[in-house]
């Protein structure tokens, strides 16, 4: 890119610092032997050992993963179909506007309002169907409900970058509707679908308010557990847990980048 002003780089580092200072603090505290407060009490890995044997944390991690994956799958399928149905159909203007509004609704609605609405819906549905008792099912349904919007928004923006000429070209080259989907639209949409799914998954992993209201006694997720520990004064096990989450994510990203680099390096001669 063109020569940027010299101050761009330092400002960016400041931005990164603001992002990473809390993570760094958590990382350091996770090795601090002091249980409460910030005084340095010596280096220890005891919190990691404790975390690894803490059934509550492991169960919550498992629940979070389960809820995250299940709700993300549901939301990604429904959200992608919604984006496609809205984009590839000549809906009347009022319908388009209305759908736009409907999709943005979960994005602008405060968590607590969403939570209360969902809880109300589950309470009514439970009268007929016992599946909706507070627990993993309600968590998955609730998460999927607000995730759909995010998936749809991301996939739609990707869809908008795929010109109509792509479909026309495929059609012109003898592709029937099924072939157009499989050979042209889906492969090009995939980055958008993956990005949407990742976003949805992150939101699910991080959600506290909605989870709090819809979860039952047997379905504690990590944010619920973390929130509770913060309320009663954070235990360093939570620091260890957060550090592991960050480190794991970073490793995953680096691995993906490395694989990408390898793949790019190989083919074109």
């Amino acid at each position: 890119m063109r020569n940027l002003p010299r101050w761009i780089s330092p400002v960016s580092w400041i931005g990164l610092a603001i992002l990473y200072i809390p993570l760094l603090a958590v990382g350091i505290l996770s090795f601090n032997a002091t249980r409460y407060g910030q005084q340095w009490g010596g280096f220890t890995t005891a919190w990691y050992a404790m975390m690894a044997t803490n059934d509550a944390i492991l169960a919550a991690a498992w629940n979070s993963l389960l809820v995250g994956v299940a709700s993300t799958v549901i939301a990604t399928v429904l959200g992608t179909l919604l984006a496609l149905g809205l984009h590839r159909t000549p809906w009347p203007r009022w319908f388009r506007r209305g759908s736009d509004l409907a999709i943005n609704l979960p994005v602008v609605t405060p968590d607590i309002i969403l939570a209360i609405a969902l809880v109300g819906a589950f309470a009514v549905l439970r009268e007929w169907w016992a599946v909706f008792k507070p627990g993993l099912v309600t968590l998955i349904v609730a998460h999927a409900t607000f995730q759909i919007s995010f998936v749809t928004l991301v996939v739609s923006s990707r869809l908008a970058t795929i010109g109509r000429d792509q479909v026309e070209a495929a059609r012109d080259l003898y592709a029937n509707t099924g072939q157009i989907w499989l050979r042209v639209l889906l492969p090009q949409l995939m980055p958008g679908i993956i990005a949407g799914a990742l976003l949805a998954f992150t939101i699910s992993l991080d959600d506290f308010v909605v989870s709090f209201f819809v979860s039952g006694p047997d379905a504690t997720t990590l944010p619920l557990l973390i929130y509770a520990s913060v309320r009663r004064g954070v235990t360093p096990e939570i620091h260890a847990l957060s550090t592991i989450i960050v480190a794991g994510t970073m490793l995953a990203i680096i691995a993906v980048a490395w694989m990408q680099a390898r793949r790019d390096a190989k083919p074109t001669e």
Partner: protein
Amino acid sequence: MASHLVVDGYLTTRPRLYGRGGLLIAGAFLWMGLFLFAPLGGLAGLAFAQRGEYGGVEWIFSWANLTRLAGWDEFGFSWSHLTILWRSVWLATVTTLLCLLLGFPMAFWIAAKRPAQRPLLLALVMVPSCVNLVIRTYAWQQFLGSQMPAAWLAQSLGLVPEGAALYPTVTAVYLGMVSCMLPFTVLPLYTSVERLDWSLVEAARDLHAGRWRTFRHGILAQCMPGLLAATILTFIPALGMFVISDMLGGAKFLLVGNLIQQQFGSMNDWPFGAMAGLFLVLASLVALWGLRIVSEREAPHHGARR
């Protein structure tokens, strides 16, 4: 023939397209209708009900929650709620501006890197948001605590009294807010900076435009869609945020988020909570709609051919 139309080279009719499109969107809209729109509608109704003597809901229609939100409480008119509202908007606005001021250079910085490095840096910006917000905010508390280097520095410079922590302060609140929202500013900004047509920027420079004019006409105009997305993604969540202000600002001042949360919690006044929530939703939608209109006017037209 006239009732037929051709979409993507396929001869079809409007009802058939609606049928196919309807099938595609049916799943999501049924789901959202059942779990979201219907209950939200119920909640909108709740906003006009009344709190029972011991909490709970009395289904008597009343405008009281609306007048209460506007400021008429048990002690007559007070500015309480309007102040809360104003403070929330102000906090969200300043946060958004700070995020844009940091996020724009960061977007350029990333876009200027080699293509292979860009996704890595972008991921680096996004990683912090996968750590729970409460934990990160708690970490800020730790970082700003009285025993930490940052506080020592401030103490030795005489900025704060000996032994004092750097929170609760306004600065701490903004640090926390920016730290939390910045990834959502950088991401959309980066996508439009990356697609920037530099020839237009150079054209502006060639015309001997000043730095500001080059930026305004050459860069800002092109980045408008990303800028708007960034503003929306930063401002709206910031508007409802209250955990950070409570933890780093000493919970001294209520924000809209607190107000709503309180009604469903300690105050046990669900109807009023629903009213305040409804208000926030509507205000956000109006803001969103306004921004969309602006963006439609400002964004370069990608009109269809013909």
